[in-house]
């Protein structure tokens, strides 16, 4: 439970707003609260502990001593359980920390001499992956699509250049024009769904379609913590998040378009700023996870290693204010 929450918070792939706006923290909190993926088996275990410990007290009409020993037994069991859970969570944290390296190790197998790689936006996994290939003396070029409206691609380009990679920065709209010169598209992901679909920064579906048109391999890098046991058709999954329109346009300049004092009081201008795209599995050529490369159709098997079938019943906890 904590592990999954944590993965949502520490998900630096796409949310890495490097300017320290309060938006970031709030967005992280929002992401955490949105992540409804709490495997109830663990959740109920943990939450029921105090309850079940309390129950014998009230119901034990037999004798105080018996009740006490029972609850003592319970508490030792729950301590053991807690210990196990904490250990498992720590293991998961370590997995998450090392997944970049494990993915990056496979870089040389995929990136060859004199190739052109295209990526969009910024992802730490992609950065490490490219740099690992560079360290192995592969010489190649990287096209970075800037990833409007947050322009994380600019940051990635800066990082890549700092590490000595040949980098070309292009606009998102130039992707189709450039794709014919590209040998491989390598991108990061926000989450990988059980059907092999990808939730990724906005604009990636377009890149995937362009890649398909020109038969360029579309490779997604994803640590195993990004695997998600849900299917995109599940109504419980909110596939998108609408962010502030101010990332697109300047409020002050457009403030006269939003004067509700005149006209019929209804806003005429509406700016939509979705954060994510859904890339269907048929557009993905390969997933590279910390356990190796996999086909999209194999993802459900991988997910089964991490989530037991019992955990897949997502249960929403009663809302408690904030």
């Amino acid at each position, binding site marked *: 439970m904590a592990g999954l929450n944590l993965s949502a918070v520490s998900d630096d792939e796409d949310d890495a707003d490097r300017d320290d706006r*309060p938006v970031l923290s709030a967005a992280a909190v929002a992401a955490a609260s949105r992540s409804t993926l709490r495997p109830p088996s663990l959740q109920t275990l943990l939450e029921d502990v105090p309850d079940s410990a309390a129950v014998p007290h009230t119901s034990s009409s037999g004798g105080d001593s018996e009740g006490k020993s029972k609850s003592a037994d319970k508490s030792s069991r729950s301590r053991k359980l807690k210990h196990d859970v904490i250990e498992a969570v720590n293991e998961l944290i370590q997995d998450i920390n090392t997944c970049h390296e494990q993915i990056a190790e496979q870089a040389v197998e995929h990136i060859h001499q004199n190739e052109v790689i295209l990526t969009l936006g910024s992802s730490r996994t992609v950065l490490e992956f490219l740099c690992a290939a560079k360290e192995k003396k592969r010489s190649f070029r990287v096209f970075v699509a800037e990833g409007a409206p947050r322009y994380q691609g600019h940051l990635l380009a800066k990082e890549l250049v700092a590490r000595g990679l040949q980098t070309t920065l292009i606009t998102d709209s130039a992707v189709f024009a450039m794709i014919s010169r590209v040998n491989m598209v390598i991108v990061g992901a926000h989450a990988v769904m059980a059907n092999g679909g990808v939730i990724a920064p906005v604009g990636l579906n377009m890149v995937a379609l362009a890649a398909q048109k020109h038969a360029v391999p579309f490779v997604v890098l994803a640590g195993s913590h990004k695997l998600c046991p849900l299917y995109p058709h599940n109504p419980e999954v909110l596939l998108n998040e609408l962010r502030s329109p101010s990332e697109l346009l300047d*409020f002050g300049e457009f403030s006269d378009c*939003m004067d509700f004092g005149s*006209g019929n009081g209804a806003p005429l201008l509406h700016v939509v700023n979705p954060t994510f795209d859904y890339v269907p599995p048929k557009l993905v050529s390969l997933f590279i996870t910390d356990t190796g490369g996999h086909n999209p159709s194999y993802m459900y098997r991988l997910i089964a290693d991490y989530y037991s079938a019992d955990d897949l019943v997502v249960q929403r906890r009663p809302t408690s*204010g904030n």
Partner: protein
Amino acid sequence: MVAQKKGATARVSEDPEELARHPLQAILLADSFTTKFRPITLERPKVLLPLANIPMIDYTLAWLESAGVEEVFVFCCAHSKQVIDYLESSDWSSQPNFLVTTIESHNSISAGDALRLIYERHVIHGDFVLISGDTVSNMSLTQALQEHKERRKKDANAIMTMVVKQSKPSPITQQSRLGTDELFMAINPDTKQLLCYEDKAEYSKGFISLDKTLIADNPSTVLHNDKQDCYIDICSEEVLSLFTDNFDYQHLRRHFVKGLLVDDIMGYKIFTHEIHSSYAARIDNFRSYDTISKDIIQRWTYPFVPDVLCGNSAIRVERRGTYRASEITLSRSAQIGPFIVIGQGTEIGNDTKISHSVIGEGCTIGSNVTIEGSYIWNNVTIEDGCELRHAIVCDGVTMKSGAVLEPGVVLSFKVVVGQQFVVPAYSMVSLLQQPTQQDSDEELEYADSSSGNVELPSKLNGDITSDLSETRHGPTSELGTGGVGYIWSIFEGGHDEEWRHSVAPIPTDKLAKIMLDKDEDEELLTQDGNVLSPSGELKSDSDANDSEDGDNEGSRDDYVSFEKEVEATFLRAVHENVKVDHVILEVNALRLSYNMASVDCAGAIFYSMMKLAVESPHSSSSELHRNAADVITTWQNLLKSFLHDIDEEIEVILKFEEICLESAKEFSPLFAQILHLLYDKDILEEDAILRWADEKEGADESDKVFVQRAEKFLQWLREAEEEED
């Protein structure tokens, strides 16, 4: 003063460590000290009013928390108990690293009193954020704070940083989109120092006055009218002591800011920090309540939007900006338009249409109801066939079937509107009787008689029940059969201004009227020569002053520059497709500012037209003729509007003569043809042409050149006249 300055610098040197030690504090004023939200605020404090179904104060606190503030002092005055109870029951009282402390007062009547009281408590150490509980923002304080601290290090007198945001005011109503008056700020563009703050510019006079020294002391000053004051201030400790020293400071802006700007003895300075990508606005009146609600729904305040603030997916955003809570009973035939918020447990009946509205929790809405641009709070019952347009409906209201709310209506708590009753536009309805205006003193306009009213609600709350039963028994009520509540009469003087601050958009006929009034005003104003044009640019009045020395030479020069101005105006009109009416207006304005007669206008315009014709490319005289004909046909209306009588027409002919003789000799062979053209287009009357010919009879031979050229045409005119006779 020197000594004081020294003391200040000494303190500054230890400031960094001092600042490092103290957590960032904020003062949140949970009382607006105004009566703009009456009658609602008689029963509930403004900060607890729901904004997209979440109390306003939650937005402010959530922002303060995310912006890194660690300790907040909530100052409660009116309805302090409700605010304190709310905060205690909410999560805010149990947040780690975010301490919310309430300070209660029963006799404060202004922000000034509040700050004086807080100063006496000695709880503020170091810089603090001053904000009122009705502010929505998502800005980052980091940069503003840093700028503030750096300025403080250099200059101990920089005691306050005001947050501003660009927002264009409406050119017609002279008010911002938040319904506040247009605000003028003079800011030094280099240092960002605030030099002048004028929120009550007098449009009746049409100008704002700036202190001469302000221009003299500052190498550059930019006067903005498109800045919105966000009412978020980063203040140094001195601000509190200043309020204590100046016990007459009441209002934060009207007294404190203006007081500091005017006072040059202490030398305190206020700076501004402009935010671009983030949002900040304060709910000051019903219009800003409407505007900010819409901004929130459009997600400008992200992440402080209902779906994120509520957390745990209690509210979900759907396509077209619809926010829906869980457990909504919605009829299949109900039409739910874009940009609406629906609270938990609300029921909506058949064929009901809802658009651009916010609907609270536990409401019951019947069938065939139309709701447009309205704000409906919790547990409201709206029966079948009601119509609501741009209204605010508070908790527990019941609208019986067929009731209609016209735009701008506010129904306060638990009001009942009778069957088929139509509540007239802009009415305020409450269960409480309108308090009698006990303080009509001008003095208390800002203090807003809160002093009297702090106790009023509690006293009245007790009376509500008796009040209620009284009205129920009564035969009638002002709200139709079965209705309960009083329709408040409009405050004196405010009658024709209520549309400004209402939730309803300004009616178009009102806008048209204002526009008309303004045009008239402008014409009057231009006579003074120093008018504040609608775009807010200041026209220089130096030219106007020149004309005052009445000697001949001066007026001749004037005429030349006037002609040039007219020409420029005309060319601009040609190139930018300005409407003829606007050109006329502009030329009239020029005429007044240069003190010219209308005769001169006609001459000058004709001159500009001919010049345009000459300057457009042509190779032969026939082409030139065609050019001239084109220009004259296109702009004949313009010229005609300045030809009121025969004198002006003669002036045009004389002007034409002059052109042919001096500036554009190419025209001289075409003189007769163009004269004919002007006659054909009804620009010149035959009388005028004949009078001109007659006048020239006695002139020198050299002067008669053109009369002779036009002889044929004149002959024809005369014959035509005779025939008619």
